[in-house]
């Protein structure tokens, strides 16, 4: 076990890489705005993954060189992107047919809070002075088969984001399947939150201390650690 002074856990790139490893070959994937976008950079060799952006493109490629930016070719985060060979454009009702109709395999989203039961809050703090803005978040969690959350384990002020019960307004109830943080990868199951993998130098005890929700160990994880 490393001391608490040493750097612990994964970098953001490593988190994205971990998530990318869990996306199967041939998957149709929607990446949320921000940290989830990084996942696209780490598709493992030999896999082909097709990215959907809900503003109307299936087969989104990486960002273009600045001189090739086109204000009419953007992603859901309104950033310039490219379109791969074999891509296609469509309108919003068709785009959300892909989402709501359960055609997209995996969605990777950011989170403000995730609960023990997989409830997700990622659109509003519910503060009275906040401008509520939901975008496609509720459609994504209601429609996509597998929901991954990628997020720092705690807020900048050290508050837990993996909580017993979300205090922020929900995006969806019991929707999250797996959580990738800098400290660990967690599976959301009917029996609660299980630790799938601990980040470098992170112990189960340390992780639990930084998590409001109750964590469980898979039998094999427990034995590997002992």
């Amino acid at each position, binding site marked *: 076990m490393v001391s608490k002074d040493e750097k612990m856990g994964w970098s953001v790139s490593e988190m994205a890489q971990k998530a990318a490893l869990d996306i199967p*070959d*041939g998957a*149709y994937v929607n990446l949320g705005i921000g940290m989830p976008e990084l996942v696209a950079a780490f598709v493992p060799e*030999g896999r*082909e993954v*097709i990215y*959907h952006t809900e503003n109307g*493109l*299936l*087969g989104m490629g990486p960002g273009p060189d600045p001189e090739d930016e086109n204000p009419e070719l953007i992603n859901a985060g309104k950033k310039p992107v490219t*379109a791969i*060979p*074999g*891509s*296609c*454009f*469509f309108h919003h*009702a*068709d785009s*959300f*047919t*892909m*989402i*709501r*109709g*359960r*055609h*997209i395999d995996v969605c990777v989203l950011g989170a403000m809070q995730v609960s023990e039961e997989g409830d997700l809050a990622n659109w509003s703090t519910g503060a009275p002075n906040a401008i509520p803005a939901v975008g496609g978040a509720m459609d994504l969690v209601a*429609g996509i088969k597998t929901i991954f959350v990628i997020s720092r384990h705690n807020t900048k002020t050290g508050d837990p984001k993996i909580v017993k019960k979300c205090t922020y307004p929900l995006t969806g109830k019991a929707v999250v399947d797996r959580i990738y943080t800098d400290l660990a990868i967690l599976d959301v199951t009917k029996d609660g939150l299980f630790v799938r993998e601990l980040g470098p130098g992170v112990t189960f005890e340390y992780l639990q201390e930084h998590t409001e929700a109750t964590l469980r160990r898979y039998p094999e994880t427990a034995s590997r650690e002992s």
Partner: protein
Amino acid sequence: MINKIIPSAAEAVAEIGDGATVMIGGFGEAGSPIELIHALIDSGPKNLTVISNNTGSGHIGLAALIENRQVGKMICSFPRTANSKVFPELYHNGEIELELVPQGTLAERIRAGGAGIPAFYTPTSVNTPLAEGKETRVFDGLTCVLEYGLKADFSLVKCHRADRYGNLTYNKTARNFGPIMCTAATTTIVQTRKVVELGEIDPEIVVTPGIFVQKVVEITNPADESKLVAEERRYPW
């Protein structure tokens, strides 16, 4: 790598088993995936529920599938056509069940099934026998019936061009039910006149995005149904 191209119609339809619900594209012969249907006759699953606008002509294609006693129930809008003899006979003998759905409601139910909309309201069929027993509700003075989304285990669709991602274009009025049926099935199986390279179909003109397609078979020269009917051909040949 994503490659949805399947070498033969036989392999493409092999997994369709007894009791499956199968959407079959086409309006009359336009867009009817006749080679896929014939492969389904060869493979022989029974007690299928078939969702298709018509019931086929003569003794080939969908009519032959029905004649071969593989269809337990038809969901369609117009189970009669000029040369439709098979369905009427079985229907009169009580050998096949029919759910008659207005054409636009059928299209919207399929579209809803594909879009994750479990049910919707429509004014079509209100005050007619086809609304009997259906829930009604008034919106701004307009009486509507509640209709449910339709999904299928399989869709069989004919298109014009396809690539290995399953992106499709169609030919003229053969488009009809194809694009919506592709969205509404767990497994969509498509026959295409030609497989083209990725990128050959301009992203602006793709009609069915590949995400809605699971299997593609190239059938370069699909049979002309009306010719076969005129020649009084029967399948199996």
